[in-house]
C-alpha cells in the first residue's frame, strides 16, 4: 500500500504493484509496456501510470539499501562467500545477498574516512610546431605519478615513466623505456597494481586519460585499456554533455573506470570558483601562493630530443604538475567536502562532479518517500518557459554612506518559508480536493500569495519541510560539534558537512522550480518567492514604521536597499554600537511577526557603505565593534577576464582607500595618479595585458585575440598560440581608423619593438566605466574630472623600432640635459655645450635610473633562477600568468637601453 507523492489526498493509501526485473536495462521496456497496457489473463487489457521508473539504478540500489555515498558498509560474518576466481583487481572478492548488507550512517565512529589511495598524474606529449598534440600522431613521452593515502601529507609513491633515458631524480623512481608501447603497457600495469581508489589530475578527464587511451589504441597496445577494477572491462572514451542551471552547459569526455573515482581538479575548480584564469599556473598561484615554472609547448620536443639531463628537466616539471592537483585537493579540501556532500545527499561520490544539483535532491526525496510509503511519479519533461516572478530587489538609494548601515537577513529564507507554510508536493491542494474533503481556509489549509493552496501541518507534514527540517537541524548540530571539536581535521570534516547541508537545503527550492527537471512544481516555487517578496516588503514597513523620531528614536530609519533575503537599514545613527544594538532589536522585533521557523537575523553592519546599484555594492563589514572583519564587495567586476590586471588593482585600491581609510579624496588623487602614469607610459606592461582563450576559430565577428593569433602564426608558426591556449595581448596605437581588433599585439613583440601602447584605450575602455561606477555615487556628474584635467596633459609615447615609419627615421641623439638635438660635432657627447657645466648632475640623474634598473634586472632574474629550481639551466619559463614574466623581459630591455645612455658619458668631460 502506497500513496502518490504529488498532491494531498487525505492521507489515504492505495494498492500499487512493485515490479522487479533481472537487469536494470529492462526497466524501460517494462515501463513502456505498463503505459501501453498489457493483457491480464481473465481481466483483459490493463494499463497504468508507472511510478519511480526513471530513477538511476545506482541511486535506486543505494536508496533501497539505505547506503549513502562515501560511507561504510558492513558485510556480516557468515553472510558472504569468498569467490574462487577473481574477476576484478580488488584484494578481496566476495559474494553477498544485497539484503544482508548493513549500511552504517556516517556518524560517530562511522564518520571517519577510509584511507583512500589517491593517484595524481600528469602526462607530457611531444607535439609538432603549431599543432596541438594528436593522439594518432604525437607520442606520449612522460607520465608522472604521485600516490598518496588520504589524510597523509607526503605521497608514498613518486615515479615517472619516461620515453628514452632520463637522468636520475632524487626521491623519485624513474622508469625509462625505449618503446612507447612498452611504456604505456607498463603504466597500465602500474595502475592495476597500485590500485588507486581515486584518480586525480588537472584536466585529466578531458586530456590526459583520453590521450593515453587513444594513443595506446593508435599504437595497438591491446593490454592497455584496463584501468578499472573489473578485469575484463575495457576502458573507453565517450562524450557526455552536462547541462545545469548552476554550472552551465559543458561537454566533456566520459571514461569508465569501474571501481575507481575520477576527480578532475580542473572540473572541480570550475564548479567552485570564478577565476580570471583556470590554468594550473594561475590556480596554484592563487591557492597555494606559488608561481610555477611553465615550459612552453614548443620546447618540450626539444628537451625530449636533447639529452638525459634535459629529459630529466622535463620529468621534474611533469612531476610537479602531477603533485600540484593533490596539493590543491588537500588545500581546498575538495575530497573531504565532496565526501560530506555525498553523505548528506546520499549520492555516489562521482556524481558530485559529473552531475548537477537535481540528482542530490532526487536522492533525498526518494529516501524519505520510501520511509513514508510514498511513491514518486514520473513527469514528462514539460519544457517551455513558465516563468514565475522571482525575488524582490528594493530600488537602491545609491550613494556613499559614511554612517553605519545595519543588514538584516532572513536565515535560510526559502527553506524556512517552505517549512513555515508547509509547502510540499504532498500538501498541494486543488479545488476538487478542497471540496471533496471539506477543508476550511486558514484552518486546514493556507492560501499562498499566488493563490495556491497547501494543507497545514496539522493535517499532514509535508515531505519537503520534513527533509529541510532534518537538514537544518543536522547543520545546527554539525556547527555545535564544530565548536566543541579540537582536532583540526575533524573540524574540517564537520565544516564540510555543515556547508553541504546548507547547500542541500537551499537547492530544494530550486528543484521545485526547475521546469525541465525531474519533478517541477511551480505552485511551490512561485509561492515561495511570493512569500519572500511579501516578507521583505513587510520588513521594510515594520522597520520604517517603528524606528522614527516620533517613537523617540534619534532619527527616521530608512531602508536603503534590499535583495531577496536581506534589507540594509540606515538607522541614522553615527556609531557602530548604536547600529548594532538597533539592528539586533529590529531583527527580534520583526521576527516575532512571522511564523516559526522564519527568523530575521541581524548579521553585520557595513560602515562605510558604497551602494552603486542593484547587486553592486561595497562596504566594510563589521560584526564586532573592535575591528572590521573584511572588505566586502558584490558585483564589482574585479575578476572579469577581459579586463587587464590594472583595473582590479585600481578598483581594489580605491575601495580600500574609500572604505577602510575613509579617504575619498585620497582615492581620487590615487586614481588621477594612475591615469597620469598610464598616459606617461609608467605602468608596468604586465598590468595592461588582456587575456582571452582561443577556443574556436570560426567566430562570426572579428575578435582581437583571434586576429592576433593569426598574425602571430604568420610570423612564427612554432610559437603562435594554439587552439585552447590563452592569448595574452595589449592594445597598441594603430592608424587613425584602426579597429580595436587590429590593434591587439603580443606583449613580447611590443617589448621587443618598443611599440607604443594605446593608453587612451586603457583609459576609455578599461578604466572609465568601472571607476565611474564606484565614484559616481560620490561625485555625481563631476566624475568626469577624474579622466580629464591637468593630470592628463603629459603624454609619453615610445618610438617604435619597427614599422613603416621607423625605416625612414634617422635617429639623432639629443642632449641628456635639455633634450635639444645635438649638433653634428657633439653627436658622440652626452650633452650640448650649454649643459656641459651640469654634467655631474645629469650623470647622477641617469645613474639613479641605471641603479634602479640594475636592481630590477638582478632581482627579477635571480628570482626566476630560484623559482625554476636550477641555477645552471637557462630560464625558459613562459608562464605569462606570473606577474614578473613581462617585467623581467622589460628589465632586460630597459637596462640595456640605459647602459647605452650611460655609455654616452664615456668621454673626458
Amino acid at each position, binding site marked *: 500500500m502506497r500513496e502518490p507523492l504529488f498532491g494531498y489526498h487525505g492521507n489515504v493509501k492505495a494498492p500499487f504493484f512493485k515490479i522487479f526485473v533481472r537487469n536494470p536495462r529492462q526497466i524501460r521496456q517494462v515501463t513502456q509496456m505498463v503505459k501501453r497496457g498489457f493483457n491480464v489473463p481473465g481481466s483483459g487489457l490493463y494499463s497504468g501510470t508507472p511510478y519511480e521508473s526513471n530513477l538511476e539504478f545506482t541511486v535506486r540500489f543505494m536508496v533501497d539499501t539505505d547506503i549513502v555515498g562515501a560511507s561504510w558498509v558492513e558485510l556480516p560474518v557468515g553472510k558472504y562467500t569468498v569467490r574462487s576466481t577473481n574477476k576484478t583487481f580488488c584484494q578481496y572478492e566476495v559474494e553477498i545477498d544485497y539484503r544482508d548488507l548493513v549500511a552504517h550512517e556516517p556518524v560517530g565512529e562511522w564518520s571517519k574516512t577510509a584511507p583512500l589511495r589517491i593517484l595524481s598524474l600528469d602526462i607530457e606529449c611531444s607535439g609538432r610546431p603549431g599543432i596541438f598534440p594528436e593522439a594518432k600522431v604525437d607520442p606520449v613521452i612522460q607520465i608522472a605519478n604521485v600516490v598518496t593515502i588520504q589524510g597523509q601529507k607526503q605521497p608514498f609513491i613518486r615515479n615517472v615513466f619516461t620515453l628514452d633515458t632520463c*637522468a*636520475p631524480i*632524487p*626521491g*623519485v623512481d624513474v622508469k625509462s623505456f625505449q618503446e612507447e608501447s612498452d611504456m604505456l603497457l607498463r603504466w597500465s600495469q602500474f595502475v592495476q597494481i597500485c590500485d588507486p581508489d581515486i584518480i586525480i589530475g588537472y584536466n585529466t578527464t578531458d586530456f590526459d586519460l583520453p590521450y593515453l587511451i587513444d594513443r595506446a589504441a593508435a599504437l595497438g597496445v591491446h593490454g592497455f585499456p584496463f584501468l578499472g577494477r573489473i578485469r575484463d572491462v575495457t576502458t573507453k572514451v565517450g562524450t557526455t554533455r552536462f547541462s545545469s542551471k548552476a554550472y552551465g552547459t559543458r561537454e566533456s569526455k566520459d571514461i569508465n573506470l569501474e571501481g575507481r573515482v575520477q576527480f578532475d581538479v580542473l572540473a572541480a575548480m570550475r564548479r567552485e570558483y570564478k577565476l580570471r584564469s583556470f590554468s594550473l599556473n594561475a590556480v596554484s598561484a592563487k591557492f597555494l601562493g606559488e608561481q610555477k615554472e611553465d615550459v612552453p609547448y614548443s620546447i618540450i620536443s626539444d628537451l625530449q630530443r636533447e639529452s638525459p*639531463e634535459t629529459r*630529466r*628537466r622535463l620529468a*621534474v616539471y611533469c612531476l610537479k604538475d602531477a603533485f600540484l592537483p593533490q596539493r590543491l585537493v588537500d588545500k581546498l579540501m575538495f575530497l573531504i567536502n565532496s565526501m560530506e556532500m555525498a553523505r548528506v545527499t546520499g549520492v555516489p561520490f562521482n556524481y558530485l562532479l559529473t552531475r548537477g544539483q537535481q540528482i542530490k535532491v532526487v536522492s533525498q526525496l526518494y529516501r524519505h518517500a520510501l520511509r513514508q510509503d510514498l511513491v514518486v511519479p514520473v513527469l514528462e519533461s514539460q519544457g517551455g518557459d513558465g516563468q514565475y516572478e522571482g525575488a524582490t530587489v528594493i530600488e537602491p538609494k545609491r550613494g556613499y554612506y559614511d554612517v553605519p548601515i545595519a543588514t538584516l537577513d532572513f536565515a535560510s529564507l526559502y527553506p524556512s518559508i517552505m517549512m513555515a507554510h508547509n509547502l510540499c508536493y504532498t500538501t498541494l491542494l486543488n479545488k476538487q480536493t478542497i471540496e471533496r474533503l471539506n477543508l476550511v481556509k486558514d484552518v486546514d489549509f493556507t492560501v499562498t500569495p499566488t493563490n495556491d493552496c497547501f494543507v497545514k501541518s496539522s493535517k499532514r507534514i509535508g515531505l519537503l519541510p520534513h527533509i529541510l527540517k532534518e537538514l537544518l537541524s543536522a547543520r545546527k548540530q554539525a556547527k555545535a560539534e564544530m565548536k566543541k571539536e579540537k582536532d583540526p581535521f575533524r573540524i574540517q570534516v564537520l565544516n564540510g558537512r555543515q556547508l553541504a547541508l546548507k547547500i542541500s537545503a537551499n537547492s530544494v527550492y530550486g528543484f521545485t522550480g526547475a521546469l525541465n527537471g525531474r519533478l517541477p512544481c511551480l505552485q511551490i516555487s512561485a509561492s515561495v518567492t511570493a512569500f519572500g517578496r511579501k516578507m521583505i516588503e513587510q520588513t521594510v514597513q515594520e522597520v520604517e514604521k517603528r524606528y522614527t523620531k516620533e517613537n523617540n528614536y534619534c532619527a527616521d530609519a530608512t531602508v536603503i536597499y534590499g535583495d531577496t533575503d536581506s534589507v540594509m537599514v540606515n538607522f541614522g545613527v553615527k556609531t557602530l554600537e548604536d547600529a548594532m544594538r538597533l539592528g539586533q532589536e529590529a531583527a527580534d522585533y520583526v521576527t516575532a511577526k512571522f511564523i516559526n521557523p522564519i527568523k530575521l537575523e541581524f548579521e553585520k553592519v557595513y560602515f562605510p557603505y558604497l551602494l552603486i546599484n542593484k547587486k553592486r555594492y561595497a562596504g566594510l563589514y563589521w560584526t564586532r565593534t573592535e575591528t572590521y572583519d573584511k572588505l566586502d564587495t558584490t558585483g564589482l567586476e574585479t575578476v572579469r577576464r577581459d579586463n587587464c590586471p590594472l583595473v582590479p*588593482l585600481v578598483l581594489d585600491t580605491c575601495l580600500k582607500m574609500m572604505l577602510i581609510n575613509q579617504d575619498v579624496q585620497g582615492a581620487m588623487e590615487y586614481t588621477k595618479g594612475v591615469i597620469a602614469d598610464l598616459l*606617461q607610459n*609608467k605602468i*608596468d606592461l604586465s*598590468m595592461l595585458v588582456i587575456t582571452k582563450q582561443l577556443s574556436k576559430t570560426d567566430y562570426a565577428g572579428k575578435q582581437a585575440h583571434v586576429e592576433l593569433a593569426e598574425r602571430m602564426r604568420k610570423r612564427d608558426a612554432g610559437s603562435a598560440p594554439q587552439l585552447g591556449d590563452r592569448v595574452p595581448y595589449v592594445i597598441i596605437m594603430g592608424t587613425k581608423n584602426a579597429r580595436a581588433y587590429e590593434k591587439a599585439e603580443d606583449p613580447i613583440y611590443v617589448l621587443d619593438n618598443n611599440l607604443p601602447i594605446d593608453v587612451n584605450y586603457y583609459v576609455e575602455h578599461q578604466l572609465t566605466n568601472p571607476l565611474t561606477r564606484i565614484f559616481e555615487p560620490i561625485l555625481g556628474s563631476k566624475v568626469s574630472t577624474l579622466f580629464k584635467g591637468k593630470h592628463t596633459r603629459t603624454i609619453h609615447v615610445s618610438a617604435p623600432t619597427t614599422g613603416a615609419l621607423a625605416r625612414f627615421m634617422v635617429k639623432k641623439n639629443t642632449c641628456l640635459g635639455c633634450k635639444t638635438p645635438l649638433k653634428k660635432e657633439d653627436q658622440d657627447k652626452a650633452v650640448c655645450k650649454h649643459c656641459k657645466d*651640469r*654634467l*655631474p*648632475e*645629469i*650623470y*647622477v*640623474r641617469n*645613474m*639613479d*635610473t*641605471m*641603479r*634602479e634598473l*640594475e*636592481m*630590477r*634586472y*638582478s*632581482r*627579477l*632574474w*635571480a*628570482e626566476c*633562477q*630560484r*623559482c625554476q*629550481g*636550477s*641555477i*645552471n*639551466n*637557462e*630560464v625558459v619559463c613562459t608562464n605569462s600568468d606570473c*606577474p*614578473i614574466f613581462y*617585467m623581467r623581459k622589460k628589465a*632586460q*630591455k630597459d*637596462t*640595456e637601453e640605459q*647602459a647605452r645612455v650611460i*655609455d654616452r*658619458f664615456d668621454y*673626458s*668631460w
Partner: protein
Amino acid sequence: MEVDQDEVFQRTRLVTDESDKYQSEFKIGRRTYTRQYNKLYYQRLNTLKPNVHEHARRKWEGQKQQIKWTQRVLNVEGPEPTYIIGTIFIDTTAKPSTLEQVEKTHWIASPQEPETYRGEGEEVHLEDESGRIRLVGAAIDTATIASGVVAAVMGSETPDGQFDVIDMCFAGMAPQPARAVDDTQDKLVALVSGLNATVEQPVTLEMQLLAEYICGNAGGSADQRRNAQIVHTIVAGVTHIPEPPLGHTEDPRANDRVPVQGLVAAVDEYLADIAASMPLTLMPGSRDPADIALPQQPLHPGMFTQCKAYSGFRSTTNPAYFDVDGTLLLGSSGQNVEDLARYAMHDESPCQLAARSLLWRHIAPSAPDTLWCYPFTQYDPFIVRRLPHVYFFGNQPTFDVVVAKGTDAQETRVIAVPVFSTSHTVVLLNLRTLECSTVHIGGLKD
C-alpha cells in the same frame, strides 16, 4: 697642536706606481643585459671544479678510507659513501622574494634585508650540470656556507633521495704570487672607507683633519714622520651619498639633482688635496653615484675635475686588485661581506667570513642570488685566481684584522676597514710587515 718646525720630512715615494696593473679584472666593457644568470653559475662551477676535486681527492681518497667520486650529483645511488661536487644553493623563505613583493605592491623596491637567511625552513641543495640533490645532516645545517659556493660534499644517499653529508671541502686558497718586500724602509698604505659626504655637509671637520693628517700637515713630529711613509691612499667606497630621490626616478620633482653639483665639486676639491701629495685610488661603494650591481664600475672621472690633474689619481672598480710596491691587494667596499654575514651560522666576525670566502676561492658567492651583480657569461671575475697578500673590505662598523692561512703556506691579511664618518678611523697598512695600525682622527670633542 704643536708642530716641531725644525724637522722636515720627505714623503716616501714609490719608484713606479703599478697600482692599476690589474684594473681590468673587474671592468665589464660594453654591457649587455639580454641574457641571464645561468652562465655565470656555470662558469663558476667549471672553473672551480678541478680545484675542489683536487682537494677532495687529497682529503678523502687514498688514505685509510677509500671514497670514490661520483661524477654527477644525480648518479649518487645507495648508502655507499661517496663524494660529489657542485654548487651550493640555499633555498629559504627568509630571502626577500621579488615575486611576493610584485604580487603585493606591483612594484620592485629595494627589499628589506633580513638579518639572516639561514635556519627554519631552509633547504640546502648541491647542483651541477646534471641537476640538484638536497643536502641534509648536521654537517650542513650548522655550516656557514653561502649560496653559490662550489663545494665537494662527502656522505651517502638517504632512502628518500637526499644526501646525508658527513664532511665537505672547497677549492681552498688560490696560489699566491711571491711578494717583493722592500726591507729597507717602512711604507704605509692608508685605507679609508665610508666618508659619507652628504649634500648638507659635504666635508666634515674630521674629513678635513683626515686629509691634513694623511698629507702630513697635522699631528706631532712622530705623527709626521709616520705620515711621510704613506705611499698610497685608497678610499674603499661610499664617498658621496647623493640621497636617492623619492618615488619614481622619472618624477621631475623628486628627481631634482641640482644640489648634487655642489656635493660633487666639494668632494673633488677635498680629495684633490690628498691627490696632490700622493697616489689616491677611489673605489665606488653601495651608495655612491655608480652602479648598484657588482662589480661597480669606476666613478666617472668627470666628477673629479681637480683630482684628475694629478697623475696619481685613479678611479677604479669595486672590487679591485692593486699592486702596491710588489704587494698584491684585493679590496672591496664591503657589500659582498655584508651579504655573506646573512649566511653565517655562528657568531663569526666579518673578517672571519671574508677569510672563509678566500677558502672558497670566491669573494662574492652569493651573487647573483642575493647579491646584485652583472650577468657575466664568459667568466666569473669574483673567483680568486691569484691570492692577494692583503684583502680589505670597507664600510665595517669596527676595525679588525685576521690572518688567513692556506695549506700551501699562503697567507693573507684580511682587514675590515671601519666607516670613517662614524669611527673617524683610518687604517695604516705597513707594506714591509703587513701589520696594521689605526689612527683615530679627533674632532673638537676629543
